[in-house]
């Protein structure tokens, strides 16, 4: 089981050159849980994740890991505890699955990047967890979208961090692969206790897979808690501007949003 960490952000203000996107967010990441950040397009959920994962420097506010500000921890040391899978990483031409997954070992390696037995073991285990061992020597270009995404997550797993941030890991995937990826991430969370924080687009999948949901609206945190506490028709109306009925998901028992448009509404 991975060690427990206290990851906290206080009064975060962040954004891009001339546009503030996050207006003072306080958040504590629950250890060993799956947290999902939801919100409409442009509400700043991706920006918040990027700020937490140190891709964006906050204009003000502090982010701490076990009480220590992130900018006081050396990047390589931090990368052994906090990992990140960005939304659109770049695939170097001609790279094999093993090579790509192995690059996740960077923060653990010495100056010359030689592979130790621990590196081999971590890479093998990450590929096993993501069920891509059979593709080990394949070129990434030969894989399907869902398989590729599993390779990327395996790269992040090989980093062996206790906390893992993922920016929309299921976007552009068919529903089958979305569920597959979320199942694999749940495996990871349950087996090794990895804390997972991700941005997801699909509110129903979020409600099903999250232990903890964070709802953002216009750069502010508007609700936080378990899916059944957060996902209500009022909240959906507030942050998405959508009328809906929230029912119980017949499969998982989690809340499920059934949208009401202008057509096909019979009740």
């Amino acid at each position, binding site marked *: 089981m991975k060690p427990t960490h206290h990851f906290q952000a206080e009064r975060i203000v962040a954004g891009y050159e001339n546009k503030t996107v996050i207006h003072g967010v306080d958040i504590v990441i629950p250890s060993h849980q799956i947290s999902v950040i939801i919100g409409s397009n442009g509400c700043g959920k991706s920006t918040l994740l990027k700020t937490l994962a140190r*891709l964006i420097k906050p204009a003000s506010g502090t982010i701490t890991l076990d009480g220590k500000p992130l900018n006081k921890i050396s*990047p390589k040391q931090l990368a052994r505890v906090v990992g990140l899978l960005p939304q659109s*990483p770049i695939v170097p031409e001609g790279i*094999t699955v093993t090579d790509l997954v192995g690059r996740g070992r*960077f923060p653990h390696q010495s100056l010359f990047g030689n592979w130790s*037995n621990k590196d*081999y073991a971590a890479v093998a285990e990450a590929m*096993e967890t993501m069920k891509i061992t059979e593709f080990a020597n394949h070129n990434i270009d030969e894989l399907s979208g869902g398989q590729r995404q599993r390779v990327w997550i395996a790269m992040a797993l090989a980093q062996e961090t206790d906390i893992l941030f993922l920016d929309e890991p299921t976007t552009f995937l068919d529903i089958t692969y979305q569920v597959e990826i979320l199942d694999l991430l749940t495996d990871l969370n349950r087996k090794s206790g990895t804390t997972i924080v991700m941005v997801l687009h699909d509110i129903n999948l979020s409600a099903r897979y999250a232990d903890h949901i964070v709802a953002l609206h216009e750069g502010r945190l508007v609700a936080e808690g378990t899916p059944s506490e957060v996902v209500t028709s009022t909240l959906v109306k507030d942050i998405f501007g959508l009328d809906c009925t929230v029912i119980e998901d017949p499969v998982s028992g989690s809340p499920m949003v059934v949208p009401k448009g202008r057509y096909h509404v019979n009740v």
Partner: protein
Amino acid sequence: MSNSSGTGTGRLKSHVPNRFVLVMVLCLVLLALCVCASLAFGSRPLRFHELMDGLFRQDVDSYTANIVRKRISRTVFSLLCGAALGVSGALMQSVTRNPIADPSILGVNMGASLFVVCGIAFWSISTANQYIWLALAGSAITAVFVFGIGSMGRGGATPIKLVLAGAATSAALGSLITAIMIPRSYVMDQFRFWQVGSVGSASWSGIGTFVPFLLVGLLIGFLVAPALNALALGDDTATGLGVRTGKLRFIAALAGVLLCGATTALAGPIGFIGLLSTHVIRLILGPDLRFVIPMSAIAGAIILTIADVGGRLIGSPGELEVGVVTAFIGAPILIIVAMRSKVRSL
């Protein structure tokens, strides 16, 4: 855990590229052949015993023995220049994540040229040291300038914008160089050979000045390779892996400019070696920079030496400067790579 590591260790040896040992051996054999060819062939054909006299008998002071001795320094110099340009190209490609970055395409060596020409024309510089420092300044400034222009506008430093910025800068610097040279016929000769790119004028003292720069550049190049591997996955991924991307780019670019600038200072602007060597190596070994960077040094040394020998044979009884030869081989390769990179950048 112990189980998966046990099976994994056996299966995952492949992080060392397939055929790496074979390629390494082949490269070393090729390198040895190049050295032999470079010593044996030239505008003046030599008999075997003349070659041996020049190589191994210090007491023989014949005309042909001196030709051979001249060829030794020339060969050493071309190997070193090739290695420097190969690694410089690999570094610049990684820093810009752009498959066609090469000192000559980005105009960096023209910047070095301009500074050296100014040095020759205005301050009558003559020592290797002065050449090198001026060339380093010139290439550094040009690199910053070209990357700056090339990253303006939408999409950052795309391959095509960088090439355009590099080509335009090269042309502008080239005409400046001509403008400075034409009214000064007295420095024309000192300059003329150097300008096309030639390893023929290498002296041992020049090589001695060059080697420290080469070593520093190569060492930095090898040390940043693992971090550049992370950078190849995108800036965000690299940051997540604990890389300080800004600092890494600065150090790697500095090493690239150092290698290119020092080479240009002594050999003149030799083009395309970085492009050719890295693409050949990447094609054979894949994209892992821990292998690509060192092997590009060897490939660069081989290609430049072959080009130099080829230039001597083609141009006989005179010789064709190596810069002309590499431009002839490199230009078509550049076109092919640039066309392919529309689909995919590094």
